[in-house]
C-alpha cells in the first residue's frame, strides 16, 4: 500500500509564540497529527510505503527530513517561485498533480485544515481532481482488513467505526502541538537519505493553474478585532502585588462590569 501525507509548513510563530525556535517553519499542527496517525499504520505492516509531500519554501525542507526520521519512506518538497501565492484552488491543483505523478497511490491523508488558512477546502479539492472518494472528521486509524482501512470517525455526537474502500482521500480532525521526539541518529540518517525537490516542470503543472495566476481569490485587507486594553502595571514588591490581587479577588462578585 502506498500512502501520501500532505503536510503544510506554517510559520513557527503562528504555533509556538514564546519558545525561541530557530526554525522559520514548523508542521501545521493538524498535519502533524495526520502524519502520526499514518505512521501508526506502518507499525501494523512494515511493507506500507509512506510519502510525505509538502508545497512550500526551501526553508521548510527540514520538515520533510523530520518526516523521514519519523518513519516516512520518502519526502518530497514542491518548490517553485511559480507556486507562490497559491490559494486553496491552486494548492489542491499542485498537490493533486504531484500525486498523479507519483502513480499508484492508494491513500491520501490530510489534516482537517491549516492554522493559517483555516478553510479545510484543499482536501475536497484534491479528491475532486483525482476523482476519489473522501471522508473527514477522522479521529484515528484502527487498522486494515483485506485492502480496506478501518477508521474511527467522530461526527457530531456520534462515534463511528468505518471500513473504507481504497483508493480514497481522508482527513483527520484533531491536531497536536507536541513536537515529535526524534533521535539524533535517526535525524542524521534521514539527512543522509535526503529528500526530493520537485518544481513546476517536474510535475508538469499547467502554468495558468498555479500560484497567483491560478488563484481565484485575493485578500484585500485585514482588520484587527482583538482589542488591546488599557494596562495597569501593578508596581511594588511581591507583597504589594499579592495584596493587590487578594483585594481584587475579595471584591469578586461585587464588581460591576
Amino acid at each position, binding site marked *: 500500500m502506498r500512502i501520501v501525507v500532505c503536510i503544510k509548513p506554517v510559520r513557527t510563530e503562528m504555533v509556538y*509564540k*514564546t519558545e525561541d525556535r530557530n526554525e522559520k517553519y514548523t508542521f501545521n499542527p493538524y498535519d502533524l497529527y495526520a502524519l502520526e496517525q499514518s505512521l501508526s499504520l506502518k507499525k501494523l505492516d512494515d511493507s506500507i510505503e509512506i510519502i510525505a509531500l509538502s508545497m512550500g519554501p526551501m526553508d521548510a525542507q527540514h520538515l520533510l527530513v523530520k518526516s523521514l526520521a519519523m518513519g516516512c519512506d520518502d519526502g518530497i518538497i514542491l518548490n517553485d517561485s511559480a507556486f507562490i501565492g497559491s*490559494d*486553496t*484552488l491552486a494548492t*489542491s491543483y499542485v498537490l493533486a498533480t504531484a500525486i498523479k505523478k507519483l502513480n499508484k497511490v492508494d491513500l491520501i491523508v490530510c489534516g482537517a485544515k491549516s492554522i*493559517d488558512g*483555516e*478553510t*479545510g*477546502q484543499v*482536501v*475536497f*479539492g484534491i479528491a*475532486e481532481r483525482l476523482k476519489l*472518494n*473522501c*471522508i*473527514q*472528521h477522522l479521529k484515528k486509524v484502527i487498522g486494515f482488513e483485506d485492502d480496506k482501512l*478501518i477508521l474511527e470517525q467522530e*461526527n457530531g*455526537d*456520534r*462515534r*463511528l*467505526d*468505518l*471500513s*473504507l*474502500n481504497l483508493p480514497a482521500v481522508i482527513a483527520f480532525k484533531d*491536531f497536536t*502541538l507536541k513536537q515529535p521526539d526524534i533521535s539524533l541518529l535517526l535525524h542524521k540518517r534521514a539527512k543522509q537519505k535526503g529528500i526530493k525537490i520537485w518544481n513546476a516542470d517536474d510535475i508538469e503543472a499547467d502554468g495558468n*493553474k498555479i500560484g497567483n495566476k491560478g*488563484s*481565484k*481569490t*485575493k485578500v*484585500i*485587507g*485585514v482588520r484587527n*478585532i*482583538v482589542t*488591546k*486594553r*488599557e*494596562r*495597569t*502595571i*501593578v508596581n511594588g514588591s*511581591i*507583597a504589594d502585588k*499579592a*495584596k493587590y*490581587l*487578594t483585594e*481584587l*479577588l475579595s471584591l*469578586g462578585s461585587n*464588581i460591576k462590569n
Partner: protein
Amino acid sequence: MNIDKIAVICDSEDYDSQYILQLITKARSLADYDNSKVLVCCVGPYHKEKLQNLSRFGADTIIICERPNVTDVWMYSDIISEMLREHMPDMAIFPASDFGKEIAAIISTVFEAGLTADCIDIKRNKNNEVSFYRAALNDSVIAEIQCKDSAIRLCTVKKGIFVESILEDRERCNIERFPYEITYNNKNPVQILESKKISNNKIVDINKYEIVFCVGRGVKKVSTYKRIEDLSKRFGAVVAGTRVAVEEGFINKEYQIGQSGKSVSPKIYVGFGISGASQHIVGIINSGIIVAINKEENAPIFQYADCSIVADIDDILDEIEKII
C-alpha cells in the same frame, strides 16, 4: 461588475430551514443592489408550500431536483453543478455546514471558481465588486476577500449571522423541476461497522463562575497547581487552563479555554503563567477584568490585560498565603 443572478444552495436536509432562509434574505438584499435575481437550488422532495415559502424571503426562481435523501456529497455536487451550469449565476451562497462546505469545495474545483469559507458578511464594494468577510488568524482579524478570474463567486456563510425576514407583497415565484440522471456510479466507499452516541455526561459549565483562574505552561509543578486550586476554593473560582496545560495533563479538556476550547466571560480572569497566544486570547476577550501573572515583562498577554503582575507564580502564591 454587474451581478445579475445570485444563487442560494440548500442543504441536504431541509431546504426551508431557518439557516437557508437567512441565506435567502441576505441574497435578496444583495440582489436589490442592482436589481438582480435570486435563484434557490433545492434537492429533496417536492413540497409545494415549503417551496412557495422561500419566495416570501426573496427567492425569484426556485429549481428543485426531486430526489429525497441525497446524502452522498458527490451526487449532490453533481446535481448542483448541473444546476449552476444551466443557470450560470454570478455568485452562489452555500451554508457553512459540514455538508455545505464539502459541496462548495467541490464546486469551486469543478468551476475553477474562487471560494471564501465561513463568511460573516458579504458586501458590494466601492469598486463594485463583491467582498466576502471572514475571521482569520485564529479569529483575531477579519479578512476582506474578493474573487478574481472566476465565472462564479462562491462562499459559505456561517449560521446565525444574517437574520431571516419576510418580505411584504411578494408575488409567487417560479418553481421549476430540475431533471437529473445519475451519470456516475457510486460504489459506496464506506461501510459503517459500528455507531455509538458519544456520551456527554460530563457537560461542564465554566461560565457559571464569576472568577476564572487559568493556568498555563508557567505552572510546572504539581505543588504549584495544588496551591492555585486551594486558592480558587477560597474565592469560589474555577480552575481552567490553556491548551498546553491540557496537553501537559494538569487540566481536563473540558476546562480548556480558547479557540479549540471554551470561551469565558467571568468578572475576573486571572492567568497564571500564560504567554497570550491569540488562540487563547480569543476565548477570554469578553472577561471583565483580566489579570495576568507572568515572570516575563514582555509577555504578549500583558497587552490584553487590565492588570499586569510581573512576578514568579510561586513567589506570588507565597505572599498571598501569608495574607489570607
